[in-house]
């Protein structure tokens, strides 16, 4: 489950589009995004060369690398991100969506990511599409990511939205437990998400509640399992080339 903060926010009921601040300021009644439980996007590493146990003669056996966690961004985000964030939070307040719906903001490599609470996802998308200052007309892509078996909230549903009016791109991300992989479907807002969500369901087993026909799309209907999960084997076979046998790619040594 997505942790929802205990205290209910005082959403600025008096907030309206007309009262939006000119620049740089957070609108009243809406809290700036703050990190919830840190999002984990990677696995811990130890050693090197993919060797563990007594076979490790590399001397790197004690090397420990923590799992990567995308750092929460702090104001100013830089570029158009600040203007956009002001508009976005004001629009959220206008539509009665608590600021806590945004769990974390990350700015990395010139792209902005909003980690959102899944119960507000559809309302957020609708706001992003309809608000005159945001206008994200196009949902470019919906994809799933599986960060690995040991990672908490390993499944992510990632949405890439494009504003053709303002020429901006943002990313929304919902983190999910593998035991409870339910996300509300955004097909009502973006009909193009239909096949994207079916593909993500097919490949990752993320269930999009409210989707008109959530069936497998690429794999056969009676297929078992969800192939792009990290615990689903690749199923490679060894290949002979010039007399030598090349092991399948999933059993080759992985160095990282």
């Amino acid at each position, binding site marked *: 489950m997505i942790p929802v903060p205990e205290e209910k926010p005082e959403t600025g009921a008096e907030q309206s589009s007309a009262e939006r601040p000119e620049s740089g300021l957070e609108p009243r009644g809406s809290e700036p995004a703050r990190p919830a439980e840190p999002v984990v*996007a990677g696995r811990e590493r130890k050693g090197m060369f993919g060797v563990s146990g007594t076979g490790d003669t590399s001397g790197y056996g004690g090397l420990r690398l923590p799992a990567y966690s995308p750092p929460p961004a702090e104001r100013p985000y830089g570029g158009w991100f600040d203007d956009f964030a002001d508009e976005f939070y004001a629009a959220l307040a206008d539509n009665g969506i608590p600021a806590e719906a945004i769990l974390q903001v990350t700015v990395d490599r010139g792209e902005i990511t909003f980690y959102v609470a899944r119960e507000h996802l559809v309302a957020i998308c609708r706001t992003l599409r309809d608000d005159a200052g945001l206008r994200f007309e196009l949902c470019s892509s919906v994809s799933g990511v599986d960060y690995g078996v040991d990672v908490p909230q390993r499944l992510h549903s990632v949405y890439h939205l494009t504003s053709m009016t303002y020429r901006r791109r943002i990313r929304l991300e919902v983190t999910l437990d593998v035991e409870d992989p339910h996300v509300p479907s955004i097909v009502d807002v973006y009909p193009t998400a239909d096949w994207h969500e079916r593909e993500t369901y097919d490949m990752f087993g993320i269930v999009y509640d409210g989707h008109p026909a959530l069936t497998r799309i690429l794999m056969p209907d009676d297929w078992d399992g969800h192939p792009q999960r990290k615990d689903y084997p690749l199923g490679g076979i060894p290949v002979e080339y010039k007399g030598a046998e090349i092991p399948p790619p999933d059993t080759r040594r992985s160095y990282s």
Partner: protein
Amino acid sequence: MTTSDRLADATTGTDTTPEGADSVGYAAHRETTEGRVYTVSGGDWDDVLSDAAHDERMVINMGPQHPSTHGVLRLVLEMEGETVTQLRSVIGYLHTGIEKNCEYRTWTQGVTFVTRMDYLAPLSNEMGYCLAVEKLLGIEAPRRAQLLRVLLLELNRIGSHLVYIATGGMELGATTAMTLGFREREEVLHLLEHLTGLRMNHAFIRPGGLAQDMPEDFHEAVTEFCKVMDERLPLYDKLFTGQPIWRNRLKGVGYLPVDACLALGVTGPVLRSAGLPWDLRKVEPYSCYDEFEFDVPTSNDADCWARYLIRVEEMHQSLRIVRQVLKKLEPGPVMVEDKKIAWPAQLSISSDGMGNSLEHVRKIMGQSMESLIHHFKLVTEGFHVPPGQVYVPVESPRGELGYHLVSDGGTRPLRVHVREPSFVNLQSMPAMSEGGLVADVIAAIASIDPVMGGVDR
């Protein structure tokens, strides 16, 4: 006639009564020297059809093995007479698990996979993937590499649009379109083979730049190609643009206005045919595209005809860009300087296909132990990519081709997701064809020009 005479009739349903025993139900006949001739008259076809049209719903499976569905695409059509009342596309027949496979290969090896997805625009795939990897790494390809990428991409765009005319024409019955289109495409493939070593699946654009520089005579080869295309492209106008059959098959067919395009996520020539000049080469220029002069053709008709005209015009514009690249090119490196990323390759053709040239291998082996170790590490282990995720879109011949790459800091991608324009655009098939005739379904698919290798990945 007793009951026992009719026994066979009761069990098998065949009439075993003697000939002529009960002549009431027979049609009028006359005796001739050939034997007895019956004159049969029946109901009018219009009566038959008017009965059938409203009672009989037909569900027809078109594909996946059908010459007009543009690949292994299956369309389930619900029809009344020749009118399509419902259409559903079924895909997945060409699913090869490329995205999953990429997670088990190094970042550089991924190029070899993605180039096989949209096999009519392999270089666009390579471009999107490499731009995404470069964004993750925080590097930029050298200027010469960027310009040469543009050159290759535009040649590829011409080739892809030629196949659109060829296969689209063939599906609509214009087989001359096929022979013409594939003849010109062969010119493109010959040129690409000369430049990159392979006709398709080039794997020539690599993270950090290009696999290697162009051959010495490439300037002449490209100029010669432009000259040939200048002569040949007007043929399409002569043969198709003024041709009434072609026009009547396409005009007003497969209508998809701009709001429907946006709702369904449709991009590329289909979106531009609805009047929105959305071309990522113009609106989000990458790889020096902002330095080139070219036009983005649009139309307000939003039908298959407009899409045909737009694609033909885009070929002319691509030629324009190719010529500008030739003028801008200056000598320089085609791969980043950083030896921790730059793949040390010098390709040549030998008995078992393309690979590192022997001279280059000798040089590597003979240089120093350290550089040999380094080379070995780079090729087998690959380079580490800092953790994070990016989404990089490029304008492929079919629309927005986006790469969402996630790295966890290792030498292999954690996730490669491709936003394939064919996949997304194919969703508009019901909107384009329901309520129309079944023959127009073919025109609508052809106008989307999906590549099933990209749709199913």
